[in-house]
């Protein structure tokens, strides 16, 4: 059972995300969109979208940092006060994400215009994210110092998965809610190619380097001998 849940399922979820995402990108790029509903409703969106996105981005980055650099992370967490600080920051952003998500949920439920642009998958995704963030916040409140212990439990398990040498013993002894949080995390990953979540890998960082204006010609134009660049002035 543990093998199915903590070994097979994560692999399946990640494979789905990668292959599904690539397939959808190749097959139906048009459907890659954030599907923003800001045109239809503005005010409530602010109180939902902003805390949700900033909250979840910061919290996910912390997860990622612990996973990518466990030893450094642990060194930082060794200090009592840094641990306090990190935990408090974590609560704050986790709660912000949760509150934002609730606002988004209520907005979608109660506003006519937003309901008109809500698909069944939006409900699945919203419910699943709500569960995931709720579990996360609950775990961090009930099982204190998660910023510390997850490096010795979840991280080795994930590392073992990545290195194709799955070891479930790191997490089988963890409390049920913690295990649920991890499994549901992979469910979110599995939902990625089937929902509007795809927008998150589209975050347009390269805008920072791009020149303002873009000119595209069917045939590369040459200008006074030199090769024509598509970019205009920056």
């Amino acid at each position, binding site marked *: 059972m543990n093998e199915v849940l903590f070994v097979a399922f994560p692999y399946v979820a990640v494979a789905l995300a990668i292959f599904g995402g690539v*397939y959808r990108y*190749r*097959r*139906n*790029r*048009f*459907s*890659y*969109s*954030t*599907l*923003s*509903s*800001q*045109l*239809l*409703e*503005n005010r409530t*969106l602010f109180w939902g*979208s*902003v805390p*949700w*996105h*900033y909250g979840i981005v910061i919290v996910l980055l912390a997860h990622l940092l612990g996973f990518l650099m466990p030893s450094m992370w642990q060194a930082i967490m060794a200090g009592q006060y840094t641990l306090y600080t990190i935990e408090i920051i974590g609560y704050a952003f986790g709660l912000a994400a949760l509150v934002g998500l609730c606002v988004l949920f209520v907005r979608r439920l109660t506003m*006519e*215009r937003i*309901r*008109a*642009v809500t*698909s069944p*998958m939006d409900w699945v995704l919203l419910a699943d994210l709500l569960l995931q963030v709720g579990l996360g916040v609950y775990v961090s409140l009930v099982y204190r110092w998660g910023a510390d212990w997850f490096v010795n439990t979840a991280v080795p398990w994930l590392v073992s998965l990545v290195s194709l040498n799955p070891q479930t013993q790191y997490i089988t002894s963890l409390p049920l809610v913690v295990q649920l949080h991890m499994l549901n995390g992979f469910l979110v990953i599995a939902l990625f190619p*089937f*929902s*509007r979540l*795809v*927008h998150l890998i*589209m*975050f*347009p*960082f*390269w*805008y*920072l380097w*791009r020149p*303002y*204006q*873009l*000119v*595209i*010609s*069917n*045939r590369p*134009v*040459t*200008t*006074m*001998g030199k090769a*024509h660049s598509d970019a*205009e*002035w920056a």
Partner: protein
Amino acid sequence: MEIRSQVSMVFHLDKCIGCHTCTIACKNIWTDRKGTEYMYWNNVETKPGTGYPTRWEDQTKYRGGWVVEGKRQKRLRLRLQGKWGTLTNIFYNPVLPQLDDYFEPWTYDYQNLFNAPLADEQPTARAISMVTGKYMDTIEAGPNWDDDLGGSQVYANNDPNFAGATQEELRQLQEIDRTVFFYLPRICNHCLNPGCVAACPQGAIYKRGEDGVVLVSQERCRAWRMCVSGCPYKKTYFNWSTGKAEKCILCYPRLESGQPPACFHSCVGRIRYIGLVLYDADAIEETAKAPQESLVQAQRDVIKDPFDPEVIAAAKASGVPDSKITAAQQSPVYQFVKKWKLALPLHPEFRTLPMLFYVPPLGPVLAKTDKGVYDNVADDSRLGPLMSSLERSRVPLRYMASLLSGGNEEIIRDVYRKLVAVRVYMRAKKVKDIPAEEVEKALTDGKTNAAEVEAIFRLTSLPTYEERFVVPPMERDMSVDSLFPALDPVSRNYPVRKGEVGVGFHTDPARGP
């Protein structure tokens, strides 16, 4: 000097009768789909009025276009935000117009007229929202809600171009026999320095190298919705159903086969001209930074003389085909904008270098009435038998300057004097009731001469279809089909560059899950 060709346009406002045929032509072809009901790629506004979306010209609210800033006015930046600002505001665009700034589109429950049970009252067709599908009890706005409402305190008085108007001027506009209005048809200006392109963090909007048409790649757009704010003319719209930005495409499939866009073709007043201009792409940035009062002149300067051998050589060097150079030489736009200096860009102070130019309407300059009688001979600076002085025009010159010259009243005066010269000259010629010295004076005042006036008259009043629309079909060897004949097996679209240029879209453009 890097010379490119650009499809450019002139609208002659004196000829617009406000019939909205252009709007309907566009609507029927392009925006009758779900999510686009509220979009008017072409719309006709009543000016003075608040426009569409409401008060779109008010950039303190919508923050569109560019500003120059920094010491010595050297830096050009989007009024909206910097690049970092775009990324940090991406979850919530603080100045995105709301659907209610446009209107909530609706249809009527026509079935009820047929299916209603027998009753004592006539059945009615109630309004149904095209967004929610629910009944709408009160309709508060629609496209053209202020149509023909010149003098209205609700609309005309709230025109942002009246920002500097005195109470007296506003009061006069409401007097029934001084009320005045004219029409302002608007489409995307296919700007040289487009705010929409610059604001899009995804790089989904681009200007076509061949003809300067500005397009949104529907496959690249990710609904970050910054373009809607970046465009100061509010000519990029957000499709709430597909989650993609859409805008006027200048009917490029028609253009490529040598036909004018549908709104041009169908224009009843024949106010629309389309043609190519050659411009210097290297000078765009400097032009956009010009001081506000000289922006119009700077924009004239960026357009180059298509007969100048140097310009022709440079155009050829950067791959402009001969057919385009010839077309640029016959362009009606070049005549109106550069040669005669009659057509002006709309709100040049937004600094996007719009490529749609307007000949201001002479109508509103007509005399004010005095005790119900046209006061057209009252002072000596009169411009002719049908005109009072420009200073006494019913629409204040300051208003026209705010609309068409970045506040430079001298430019407006010059245009009007020339337009008046045309009228005086032609009247003297046809009706023969104006003495020769008055004609001479009008010509001198208008800084023009008989030959030019005749040419202006001809292109204004009697142009043929071929003279109004000079658009050469796309060169065959430039067409995308000849470059990429094969379909991609997975997406069933054309491969890479085809995707970039936005043609060959073969998958069903449906909203994602």
